């Protein structure tokens, strides 16, 4: 069960479609301040079912849709597609018959998000459960956003116990 490719289109500063191939080992993501590195990482979190706009630095979920640049108008739709490689057939049913699993999330301004798993409509809950079964998810410990290390340190003991629940 591997993460294979991540495709963003209209998501935050990625107005033109980009595709990140996720290969084995360590992939570094570099570039100047403000160029879009954290946006890319948030695209992954978002397609995995993140429901809190605040966790994506916005005040509403429409904030993830490209809102224009000096030479480009705002968009009304953002889409992120994540492709998983399931050659080892380790996926949860009912998705375990496919070699690949594709999770797509699409948001339209003022009309909310739609999810699809292998082309079929799905609910946010289905996507979240799929990733939870893979011991991962938008809130997985292994997704450490910029500045989140500080919150582990400063957290109150009751907040930190959430980490234990993830390990259980």
């Amino acid at each position, binding site marked *: 069960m591997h993460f294979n490719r991540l495709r963003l289109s209209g998501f*935050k500063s990625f*107005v033109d479609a980009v595709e990140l191939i996720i290969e*084995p080992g360590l*992939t570094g993501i570099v*570039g100047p301040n403000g160029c879009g590195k954290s946006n890319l990482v948030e695209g992954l979190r978002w397609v995995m079912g993140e429901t809190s706009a605040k966790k994506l630095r916005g005040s509403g979920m429409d904030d993830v849709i490209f809102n224009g640049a000096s030479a480009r108008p705002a968009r009304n739709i953002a889409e992120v597609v994540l492709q998983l490689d399931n050659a080892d057939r380790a996926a949860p049913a009912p998705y375990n018959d496919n070699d690949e699993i594709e999770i797509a999330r699409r948001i339209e301004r003022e009309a909310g998000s739609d999810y699809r798993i292998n082309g079929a409509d799905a609910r946010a809950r289905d996507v979240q459960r799929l990733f939870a079964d893979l011991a991962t998810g938008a809130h997985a410990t292994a997704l450490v956003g910029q500045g989140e290390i*500080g919150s582990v*340190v400063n957290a109150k003991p009751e907040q930190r116990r959430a*980490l234990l629940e*993830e*390990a259980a």
Partner: protein
Amino acid sequence: GRERMSAAFEAVDGHFGALFKRLFGGGNARLSLVDSDDPLKAGLEILASPPGKRLQAMSLLSGGEQALTALALLFAVFLTNPTPICVLDEVDAPLDDANVERFLDLVGEIAGSTETRFLVVTHNPISMARMDRLFGVTMAERGVSQLVSVDLVRAQDLRATA
């Protein structure tokens, strides 16, 4: 319920103590359940002393020491329940060179011994040099992000451009 929580605590604590020693090159740390005898209700406290230093509240540790301790805890949870992907956004920012090297040794070892794929966002040239490949995010057109493959040799230019 309770048994699974206690077992999880023991497992994470075991990893945490070992990872702390490894990231700090010594010292001592462990976890503690506080405020309740019930593992389902207790809070999670961190007791850490870097090498040669007395045990004190986490708040008194330095910025880099706190970050390294948090990384030991996050990876301890990870090792208890490995995931197919691990994304780290600028976690190396507060670390000095020696601590960055130890952090990268750990990440490299986890990548080599598990199936986990890592995405590591960084401004640190030491981290960049230890990656298997680099992707650069650029804004040649202002406000519009693009992705480019970066030759590890050329990383230097990309980092300095703005």
